């Protein structure tokens, strides 16, 4: 028999946001510079489990990832059965900043993917003082709708089948099968209407070109990494961002898709490690 206990700790944070107390599940591993990781729409913090088990990261960074309310092991608020869930940009910003404050994270790095890659833009614009650096994975300013979102939450379509089928092509073709299947399983487990509610923020709350131009990367460095097989945030979307935001560069990750951290950790690290080394070297 072979058995291993992973060196990842999970706890719950009681955090009141906008008058509602949330019970938020988070995991962490390692020590050093806080690296707060944000999962994609309709998924949860398990996407970062590979990063949390890589000594090359955890020896220098305290890797932390929470499940957003309504996601993973975090609770949905009382009354969830009677109202639709809809993520807004302001609520998402307040969640990230509120979580960092609650844990007393000093000069953390925030790395977000997809909707997380979108919110780092808002953090860069509005709260550059709070963070050491920001990393956007699969970051784009907006996504034009390319399918009817009503299918994501209706009684005659099984969202646990539909959403993994929508996501499957967003994964690079050479990703290990176990990682592909696990990434899609996270989507299969999402609560009713939660992925759709996250997409409200992703598809309906864009940043304007003026917003992007106002981001000051001398106040807080901003890095972009985007997988080439992503058709949600396409490489050209990130290239557009980098053209709008002075002091940024779009790094296109060959072979990877929309979920670099859970698709293929080793390949992802070949792109992320130099960014982490730069952040570490630059200090504050």
């Amino acid at each position: 028999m072979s058995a291993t206990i992973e060196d990842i700790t999970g706890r719950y944070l009681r955090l009141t946001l906008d008058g509602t107390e949330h019970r938020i599940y988070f995991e962490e591993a390692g020590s050093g510079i806080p690296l707060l990781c944000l999962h994609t729409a309709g998924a949860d913090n398990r996407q970062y489990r590979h990063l949390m088990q890589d000594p090359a990261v955890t020896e220098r960074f305290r890797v932390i990832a929470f499940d957003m309310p309504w996601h993973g092991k975090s609770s949905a608020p009382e009354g969830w059965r009677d109202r639709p869930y809809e993520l807004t940009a302001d609520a998402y910003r307040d969640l990230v900043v509120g979580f960092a404050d609650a844990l007393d994270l000093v000069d953390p790095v925030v790395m977000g993917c997809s909707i997380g890659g979108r919110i780092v833009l808002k953090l860069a614009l509005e709260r550059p003082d709070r963070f050491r650096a920001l990393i956007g994975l699969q970051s784009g300013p907006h996504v034009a709708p390319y399918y009817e979102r009503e299918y994501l939450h209706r009684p005659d379509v099984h969202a646990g089948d539909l959403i993994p089928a929508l996501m499957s092509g967003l994964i690079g073709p050479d990703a290990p099968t176990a990682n592909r299947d696990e990434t899609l399983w996270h989507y299969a487990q999402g609560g009713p209407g939660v992925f759709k509610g996250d997409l409200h923020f992703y598809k309906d709350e864009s940043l304007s070109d003026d917003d992007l131009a106002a981001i000051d990367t001398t106040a807080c460095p901003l890095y972009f990494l985007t997988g080439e097989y992503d058709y949600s945030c396409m490489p050209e979307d990130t290239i557009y961002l980098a053209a709008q935001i002075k002091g940024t560069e779009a790094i296109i990750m060959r072979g990877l898709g929309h979920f670099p951290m859970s698709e293929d950790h080793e390949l992802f690290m070949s792109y992320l490690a130099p960014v982490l080394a730069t952040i570490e070297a630059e200090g504050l």
Partner: protein
Amino acid sequence: MPDLNFQEWADTANADAGLVHRGRYVNAVVLLDLGDEHHLISIRDGRIESIVPKPRVMPLWTFAIRAPREEWGAFWQARPVPGSHDIMALLRRQVMVVEGDLHPLMANLRYFKDVLEIPRGKANAA
């Protein structure tokens, strides 16, 4: 453009027990629009019954999938380039259109993706 072998396409789908099981509630006629060629794929209980040229008079289908010939050719490459690798990517790039009663497509999306990818690497791309 791929030279499609429709009989082989149907036989391959029907021989895949997992695929047929996933599609066991699928009863639909799909109009496959290749740009200058149109075919009707008839599916009953997850099995492809026939793939035939669209009749000239009174054709009837559940939903249509339309893309130009060269896009299908890129999609059916053995190893498609990013952006040609998934029907959702074609929709995102607005080079593919789906229309009609889309409920069977969305309720059985993996089934239809798998069926449409069967000619991949087998079609002779011009």
